[in-house]
């Protein structure tokens, strides 16, 4: 059982702040590090794996510092996002080399079981340069698991995986979390994270925007103001009708036709919209949510 602790951690590159005063504890089980691209996830994982010094604050694993402390790698398995591997080796040679570098007593056996765990036994004797993206990801997993680490850090592990491989990796991570390992993976896709992670840490623009189980994060998202574009038979009348309802915070006529509506209560708005339209004899042509992108959700979380 291991715990990663980040205490008021910031990291900047010259005058660009990549991570801004982040404090979090990552304990046993699966934790998802969620955030849009460029949010600082890779920087955080680099600091959690001892490959980057925080500019201020401390990052420790079970109380031990990670920076310039190679002995922590007995406990840590790292799956970096970058795809580069030792392409001239076969998958098996690569995992065996990792086992040898960990000084394991039986590197061959450790490699075999790790390769079997990620279902790469059939392709293990092929040269890595011939592997698909998903196969590379799995052999990287095998190499990071070969010494049975108590902490596993994965940077965007689902990138490039087909649905079957994705499900397999999700099961693998869930099992590892259930075994009491501390598993942290980063992703920019909420659906991906909530299928695997018990705990979710949301990072936006280098800041720790939210933390909690996926239910709590979901609530933060669904309770936020929602924006829609409506196209109706009578936009002006529809806008005035909607403004009379407390679930609507604002309505604006667009110059190219249609109404922009901001609803503060998504549940009530979805119920009253068709009813009010019918009562006032206004035909609804189109209802389009405009802010479903992850970035807007995150932007809301940060401002909340």
């Amino acid at each position, binding site marked *: 059982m291991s715990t990663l602790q980040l205490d008021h951690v910031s990291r900047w*590159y010259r005058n660009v702040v990549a991570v801004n005063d982040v404090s979090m504890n990552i304990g046993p089980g699966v934790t998802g590090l969620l955030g849009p691209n460029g949010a600082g996830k*890779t*920087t955080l994982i*680099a600091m959690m*794996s001892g*490959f*980057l*010094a925080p500019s201020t604050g401390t990052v420790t694993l079970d109380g031990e510092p990670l920076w*310039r402390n*190679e*002995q*922590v*790698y*007995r406990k*840590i*398995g*790292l799956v*970096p996002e*970058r795809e*580069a*591997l*030792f392409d*001239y*080796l076969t998958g098996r040679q690569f995992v065996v*080399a*990792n086992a*040898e*570098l*960990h*000084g394991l007593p039986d590197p061959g056996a450790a490699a075999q079981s790790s390769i079997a765990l990620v279902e790469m036994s059939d392709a293990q004797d092929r040269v890595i340069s011939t592997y698909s993206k998903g196969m590379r990801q799995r052999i990287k997993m095998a*190499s*990071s698991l070969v010494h049975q680490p108590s902490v596993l850090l994965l940077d965007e592990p689902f990138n490039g995986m087909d649905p079957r491989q994705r499900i397999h990796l999700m099961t693998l991570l869930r099992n590892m979390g259930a075994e009491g390992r501390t598993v942290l993976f980063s992703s920019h896709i909420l659906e991906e994270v909530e299928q695997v992670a018990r705990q979710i840490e949301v990072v936006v623009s280098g800041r720790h925007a939210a933390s909690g189980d996926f239910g709590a994060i979901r609530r933060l998202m669904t309770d936020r103001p929602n924006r829609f574009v409506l196209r109706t038979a009578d936009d002006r009348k529809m806008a005035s009708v909607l403004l009379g309802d407390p679930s609507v915070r604002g309505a604006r006529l667009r110059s190219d036709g249609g109404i922009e509506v901001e609803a503060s209560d998504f549940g009530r708005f979805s119920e009253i919209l068709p009813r009010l339209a019918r009562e006032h004899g206004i035909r609804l042509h189109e209802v389009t949510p405009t802010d479903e992108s992850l970035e807007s959700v995150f932007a809301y979380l940060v401002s909340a």
Partner: protein
Amino acid sequence: MTTTAIHPTIVRLGLRSVFGRRRGILLFILPLVLIGLAVLVRVLVGADDLAAERTLDRLGLAVIVPLIALLATTGLLAPEIDDGSISYLLAKPISRYTIVISKLAVATCCVLLFAAIPMLLAGLVLMFDDPAFALGFALGSLVGGTAYCALFSLFSVMTRHAVVVGLIYLLVWEGLLGGLLDGVRWLSITRWARAIVEPIADVTLAGDLSTVYAIVATVVVIVGGTWLTGRRLRAFNLTGDE
């Protein structure tokens, strides 16, 4: 985990890395050029002291040895740092100095195989009756080449353009300034190698540079370069320095 200075797995991976890439072919071509030229000189000029000396000094010590060291060292470290695959070596409970020393051991073996031994063979081709001549140049190549490896390993961890920086260093510092400014000899690895060759081969190459100074300076570069490379690797940033 591993307390030895050289890790066999890193050596094995290093050998695969050097010879698994296209530039590894150059390691075979350069010594062939040296031996081929030695044969040509021998055939055209005969057993001539000055011709032999100039061939081994100006082609061997000044060109082939540093190029072999550059190719071997940068082929071991720079590509892994560039593509990030070095993280698989660094995410292990192994001293960073063990990683550097293991890699330098591979580079030094390359210098021995592709620079020192070809120098010995070329020396024997040129001056078969004087084996000390060939041995002196071979030893100077090995010692000078090892110092170059330590220096180029430091370049590899300091810049993403280690090959270019290494070539500029060789052309500008060792070549151009070394020829124009006499004071450069105190800080020139090739000049030190020449001073080491002198007493064994019984030739005059380095002027007033003493062999003792050359040996001490070479050891300082080898130990200092190794230490600084390991130190830099301990603080390796996976995300880069941007």
